C-alpha cells in the first residue's frame, strides 16, 4: 500500500501573462492600430484609414449592442435585427430628404437639426417596431432556439418586403447635408467630417450604455438578469418587463446605426440590414455572446481589419472578417469576453 500523497501547498505567483489576461481583449485594438501603422508605412494614409475604420466600427457597434444584450438577458437570438437597421435607415433618410431645405442649407445648426430629427424619427419607428416584433414574433417562442431563429428570419423577410412595398425595390441615392460633406485636413491626412461625427456618436453611445449599465439601478437589474435571471425574478423583479425595455432600446439603437450607415454610404437598399447582419453576427461572436464591451472591441477590430486589408491587399478583404473570427475563436472559443452564466 502506497502512502497518501503529500499535501504541501505550493505558492506560485500568478504569471504576468495570466494577470494580463483580462486586459488582453482591450489591448487588441491598440495593437491592431499599431500593426496597421507599420504595415502601411505612410502616416497620412494610416490616419485616414484608422479614422474611417473607427467610424465603421462604431456604427457596427451601435447596431450590435442591442442584439448582444438581448441575447444575454433572455437567451433570445434575433435574426431579424437587421430589419431594424433597414427600417431605421429608410425612415431617417426619408425624414432628412423631406426636410430638404434644412439639409441643403449651408448652416451647421439647421443641418444637425435635420439629421437629429431624422435620427429621432428613425429611433422612434424602430423602437415601436421592436416592441411589436417582441410581442408578435418573439413572445410565443421563448426558450426554443430553433423556432426563434426560423421565426425571426421570417420576420426579417416580411419587414424587408414591406420596405420594398413602401419605398420601391430600387436603391435610393442621396447626398449628405451640406456641412457634413467634405473633409478636414489634419497632419496631411484628409479626415472626412462625417466619419469624425460617427466616431463621436458611437463613442457617446458606448459611454452612455456603460454608465447606464454600471451606475443605475435598472442597469444593475439588467446585468444581474444576464448573469442569473431566475434569481432576479425570485427577488421580485419582473424581468419580462425589463427585457421588453431592453429589446425596444436595442431596436432603436439598430435604427440609429441604420441611419448612420445610410448617411455613411449615401445609398440605402432594403437588403442593407441583411448585409449588415453578417458583420453584426461576426462582431457579436468575436466579442462573446451577451457582452457589450466585447461587442465594442469586436466591432472596432472588424472595422480596422477591413479597412487596413482593403488598402493593403484588396482581394483579401473579402475574407478578412472570417479569418479574424476564426483566429479569435481558436484563441477563445466562447468569444473574447463571454458572459459568465451563474447556472
Amino acid at each position, binding site marked *: 500500500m502506497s502512502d497518501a500523497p503529500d499535501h504541501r501547498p505550493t505558492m506560485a505567483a500568478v504569471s504576468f501573462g495570466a494577470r494580463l489576461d483580462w486586459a488582453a481583449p482591450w489591448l487588441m485594438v491598440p495593437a491592431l492600430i499599431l500593426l496597421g501603422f507599420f504595415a502601411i508605412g505612410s502616416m497620412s494614409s494610416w490616419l485616414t484609414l484608422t479614422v474611417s475604420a473607427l467610424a465603421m466600427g462604431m456604427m457596427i457597434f451601435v447596431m450590435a449592442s442591442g442584439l448582444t444584450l438581448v441575447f444575454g438577458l433572455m437567451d433570445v*437570438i434575433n*435574426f431579424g435585427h437587421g430589419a431594424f437597421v433597414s427600417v431605421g435607415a429608410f425612415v431617417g433618410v426619408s425624414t432628412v430628404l423631406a426636410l430638404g431645405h434644412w439639409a441643403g442649407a449651408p448652416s451647421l445648426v439647421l443641418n444637425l437639426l435635420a439629421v437629429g430629427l431624422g435620427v429621432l424619427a428613425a429611433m422612434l419607428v424602430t423602437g415601436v417596431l421592436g416592441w411589436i416584433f417582441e410581442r408578435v*414574433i418573439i413572445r*410565443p*417562442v421563448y426558450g426554443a*432556439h*430553433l*423556432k426563434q*431563429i*426560423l*421565426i425571426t*428570419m*421570417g*420576420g426579417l*423577410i*416580411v419587414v424587408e*418586403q*414591406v420596405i*420594398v*412595398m413602401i419605398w420601391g*425595390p430600387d436603391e435610393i441615392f442621396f447626398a449628405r447635408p451640406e456641412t457634413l460633406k467634405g473633409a478636414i485636413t489634419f497632419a496631411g491626412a484628409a479626415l472626412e467630417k462625417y466619419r469624425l461625427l460617427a466616431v463621436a456618436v458611437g463613442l457617446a453611445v458606448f459611454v452612455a450604455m456603460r454608465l447606464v449599465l454600471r451606475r443605475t439601478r435598472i442597469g444593475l437589474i439588467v446585468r444581474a438578469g444576464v448573469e442569473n435571471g431566475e434569481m432576479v425574478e425570485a427577488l421580485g423583479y419582473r424581468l419580462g418587463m425589463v427585457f421588453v425595455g431592453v429589446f425596444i432600446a436595442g431596436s432603436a439603437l439598430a435604427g440609429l446605426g441604420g441611419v448612420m450607415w445610410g448617411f455613411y454610404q449615401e445609398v440605402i437598399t432594403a437588403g442593407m440590414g*441583411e*448585409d449588415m*447582419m*453578417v458583420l453584426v*453576427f*461576426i462582431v*457579436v*461572436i468575436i466579442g462573446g*455572446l451577451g457582452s457589450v464591451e466585447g461587442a465594442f472591441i469586436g466591432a472596432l477590430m472588424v472595422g480596422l481589419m477591413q479597412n487596413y486589408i482593403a488598402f493593403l491587399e484588396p*482581394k483579401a478583404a*473579402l*475574407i478578412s*472578417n*472570417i479569418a479574424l*473570427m*476564426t483566429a479569435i*475563436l481558436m484563441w477563445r*472559443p*466562447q468569444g473574447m469576453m463571454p458572459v459568465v452564466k451563474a447556472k
Partner: protein
Amino acid sequence: MLSVLISGDRPRSVVLGVLLMAILIGLATAPFLFPGVRSLETAARICVFVVLVASYDLMLGYTGIVSFAHTMFFGLGAYGVALAVDGMERGFVPVVLGAVLGALAAAVLAFAIALFSLRVRAIFFAMITLAVASAVAVLVSQLSGLTGGEDGMTLRIPRELTPAFKLLNEPVLGVRFNGKLLNYYLVFSVSLVLFLVMLRVVNSPFGRVLQAIRENDFRAEAIGYRVVWYRTVATCLSAVMAALAGSLYALWLRYVGPDTVLSFEIMLDILLMTVIGGMGTMYGAAVGATLFVLAQTYLQSLMGVAAVALADVPLLPALLNPDRWLLWMGVLFILSVYFFPTGIVGRLRESVRSG
C-alpha cells in the same frame, strides 16, 4: 421489397401514401404525362430540390441544427462540375470528377465550420454559417476570372445529354427521344437514389441518435453518445448530399451562376420547403419541395393574372403583384412555424393517429 427500399419508414397515412405515390409516378412519367419544355424544367427542378431539401432536413429536422450555408454547399457541387467541365475535355469523366470534388470540398468546409461552432454552442452554427456563406457568395461573384462572376458559367455537358443527340428518329407517344430526355432521367434516377440513401440514414441507429440529440442533447450525451461527433457527421453528410444535388442541377441547367445556386433567396426557399413539408421527416421534404416548386412556377404567374383582373379594386392588386411573392412567403413561413411546426406530413400522420 418496397419496405426494404424505403427502410421500413412507412408513410403511416393513406393520404400521404397516395400523395407520395402521385409525386413519384408524376416525376417518373413527367416527359410523357406533361409534355412541354416548361413542365419538364419544373419536374427536374422538383427532383433536385427534393434531394436538397431532404439533405437540409437531415440537419434541421433530424439533428436540430440551423444552417444558413446550405446554398453554399449546393453551389460548391454546381461550381465543382462547372469548373471541371470547363477545364477538361467534353465527356462524362469531368462531370463525375467535378461532382466528387465538389462534394469533397463541401464535406471539408462543413467539417471546419462544425468544428469551430458546434463545439461551443449549437447557436453559433447558425450565425457562423450565415457569415461564411455570404463571404463565399461575395468571393464567387468577385473572382470573375475563375467563376465568371455575376454572369456565371455555361457548361459544355456530354453530347449524349443534349437535345442534339437523337436516340430514335421518330417521336414515341409525342415525345422526342433525345439527349434531353436522357438527361432528365439521369437527374430523376440519381435524385431517387440519393433520397433513398438519406431515408436509409435517418432510419438507421445513427439516425435515431440524431433524433435523440434533437430532442435532448444533454441526455444523449449522458447516455454516452458523443453529441459533437454525431452533429458534425450529420452536417458533413448533409453538405455532401447538397453538393451532389448542386451537381445535378448544374448538369440539368447547363449553367451555373450566383443567382441560380448561391443566392440567399434559394436558402429561404429551402427553409420554406422544409418547414411547409414537415421538419423531421424525409417525406416532408418530398411533399414540401414538390408543392413549393409547383406554386412558384404556376401560382406566381396566376398572381399576376389576378392582379391585372382586379385592377379596379383598391389595395388588392398591390398585394397580389407577383413582386409581393416573397412577402407572402415570409408570412406563410412565420405562420407555419407557429401553427404547423410539424408541416403537412406531420398533420397527415396526426390525423391518422387521432382518427
